[in-house]
């Protein structure tokens, strides 16, 4: 132990230094209080023995300033005093002294006091060290939390909970919410809603938000089905979360016209479908295990379809709501909450959401605490027809002519028209026309193949029936060895047109009259092909007496 002895008497200094060194301590001696303050930082004493009566700065004045220098770490100060008067001893303690030792003293008493105060000093020192570490960790934690918060905030930037037909209220126990509410409109005006409740609350469950929200926004913008979403989310969380963590979830899709709900509920309390008079029309019960538990083989992604009306609203909530404590310590419960909701809607459907939130807030305030994260979402089924926001954009593509020859191998092994349209669809200008272009190419290609190559008469569809016609077609395809169908495509970006001519090396031309109109009569069920093409293309004509089928399509036509 390092001990600072402050005494103006050389004899005392020598005596104390001798004793303390003998006990195994290292000792520094100074003559007065002023010197003690000067050497304090360089010596870093662990205990101070302080004389009372000294020149320059006496003990009473020195003690509090030494304490101050020591800062957060306790510095034991033991006064060495020759005086026996009671008031002096009292003063020693008042100015911050921890103990005193009256001379003359027994060396064993000195030893006992030094080791007792040494222990206190050690304790204080290690406490201070631990506080420092704790502080460091706490700062670091704060910094990391703010980074994660930033990431979560960005991950949810795509969240579409601001639509007029959706209202949500989320309240979390800690900075991070273990509940998750996501919404997004799909490509055809359908709306997807996800309500999740991770086990626990705080940072750990909140991190599950990242992969889940990414998957949700991605799948919703592609218009995928609720059952595919459920399976994908389960797979992701299964791979990601530890065994004791999972996510109860409700996934809902509302159709563009607001007439149909598709739902998957795994572990979320029964969501309610309520009408504007406050009557519960449907329950959306939990029929599945939460996400992130079952393996892909055991996972059940079966969904439920409900038919709803414009005046219906879906009310979904996490168990934080039903576990809300009432004044008498009982829980609100599903029945209690349903009643609260019914009354609010009866009263005024327009104000019902705010009304219910207000009641929940009052309960929370009354109880001073909430035990679980809590979420409430209301989705109105009233929808306006989606507005088509497609705008014509200018495309800077090169004009091109493309020639493709398709033979037996391609027809049997590949999917030539799909590949062709997939490739054309890579061009931005053609992308939104893929479905229509496929129809045009597929119908014309099949016409040439069926009539000119395989010599299948349209009448045969009538005679043989739909499926047997195709069996016959397969058979003829097998027998026919070397045919070639040529497609010449011409694209002009400035005129916004794509045209193509299909011909074959087949023997049999399509029956056409001199004007190029097909002679084949109206075929009720099956011969829709070319008729359909005529509806979409600007021009459809047979050339070279039914050997070449020419189609011209206007890309500037507004979509459906």
């Amino acid at each position: 132990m390092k001990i600072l002895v402050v005494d103006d008497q050389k004899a005392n200094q020598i005596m104390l230094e001798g004793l303390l060194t003998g006990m195994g301590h290292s000792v520094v001696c100074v003559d007065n209080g002023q010197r003690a303050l000067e050497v304090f930082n360089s010596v870093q004493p662990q205990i101070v023995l302080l004389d009372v009566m000294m020149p320059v700065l006496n003990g009473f004045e020195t003690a509090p300033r030494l304490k101050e220098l020591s800062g957060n770490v306790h510095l034991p100060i033991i006064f060495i005093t020759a005086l026996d008067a009671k008031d002096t001893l009292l003063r020693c303690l008042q100015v911050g002294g921890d103990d005193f030792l009256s001379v003359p003293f027994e060396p064993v008493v000195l030893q006992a006091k030094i080791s007792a105060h040494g222990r206190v000093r050690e304790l204080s020192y290690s406490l201070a060290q631990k506080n420092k570490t704790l502080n460091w960790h706490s700062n670091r934690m704060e910094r990391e939390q703010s980074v994660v918060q930033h990431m979560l905030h960005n991950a949810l930037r795509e969240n579409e909970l601001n639509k007029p037909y959706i209202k949500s209220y989320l309240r979390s126990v800690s900075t991070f919410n273990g509940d998750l509410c996501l919404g997004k409109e799909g490509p055809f005006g359908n709306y997807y809603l996800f309500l999740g409740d991770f086990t626990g609350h705080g940072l750990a469950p909140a991190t599950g938000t990242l992969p889940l929200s990414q998957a949700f926004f991605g799948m919703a913008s592609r218009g995928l089905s609720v059952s595919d979403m459920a399976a994908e989310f389960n797979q992701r969380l299964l791979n990601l979360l530890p065994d004791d963590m999972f996510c109860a979830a409700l996934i809902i899709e509302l159709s563009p016209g607001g007439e149909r709900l598709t739902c998957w509920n795994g572990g979320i309390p029964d969501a309610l479908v309520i009408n504007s008079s406050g009557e519960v029309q449907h329950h959306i019960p939990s029929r599945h295990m939460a996400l992130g538990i079952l393996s892909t083989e055991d996972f059940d992604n079966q969904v439920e379809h409900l038919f709803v009306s414009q005046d219906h609203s879906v009310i979904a909530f996490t168990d934080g709501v039903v576990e809300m404590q009432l004044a008498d310590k009982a829980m609100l419960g599903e029945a209690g909450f349903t009643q609260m909701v019914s009354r609010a809607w009866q009263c005024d459907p327009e104000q019902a959401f705010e009304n219910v939130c207000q009641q929940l807030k009052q309960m929370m305030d009354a109880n001073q605490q909430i035990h679980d994260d809590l979420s409430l979402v209301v989705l109105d089924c009233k929808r306006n027809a989606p507005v088509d926001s497609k705008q014509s954009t200018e495309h800077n593509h090169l004009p091109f002519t493309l020639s493709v020859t398709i033979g037996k191998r391609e027809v049997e092994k590949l999917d030539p028209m799909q590949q062709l349209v997939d490739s054309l669809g890579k061009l931005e200008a053609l992308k939104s026309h893929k479905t229509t272009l496929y129809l045009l190419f597929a119908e014309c290609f099949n016409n040439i193949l069926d009539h000119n190559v395989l010599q299948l008469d349209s009448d045969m569809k009538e005679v043989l029936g739909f499926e047997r016609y195709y069996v016959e077609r397969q058979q003829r395809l097998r027998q026919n060895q070397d045919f070639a169908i040529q497609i010449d495509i011409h694209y002009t970006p400035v005129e916004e047109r794509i045209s193509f001519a299909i011909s074959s090396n087949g023997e049999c031309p399509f029956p056409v009259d001199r004007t190029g109109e097909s002679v084949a009569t109206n075929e009720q069920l099956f011969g829709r092909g070319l008729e359909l093409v005529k509806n979409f293309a600007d021009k459809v004509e047979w050339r070279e007496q039914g050997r070449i089928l020419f189609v011209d399509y206007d890309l500037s036509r507004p979509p459906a």
Partner: protein
Amino acid sequence: MGVTREFSADQKQLVIAIKGKFDFSLVQEFRQAYSHVGDTQPLVIIDLRETEYLDSSALGMLINMRKSLGSSVKGIQLINARPDVKRILDISRFDKMFTIN
């Protein structure tokens, strides 16, 4: 790609989803999907959200399904068709034979 089928828990709805290309290459799969509808007179829902391509053979298959199911089902609905697909259905006057929404 392909056809998936799924009955609702109460057996009152049969949802058939068609992914990717809907044409004659799916004829077997599609027929299987609507066979065995049982005697609960379910509503058949054809989910076209992931149908990107279709041609007249697909229209033929839908009409065949309608003939074959007849009154053993409550009805047939075509849902979630993309605008381009819906236009093809509209032009083919499918709204007269099916409920499209």
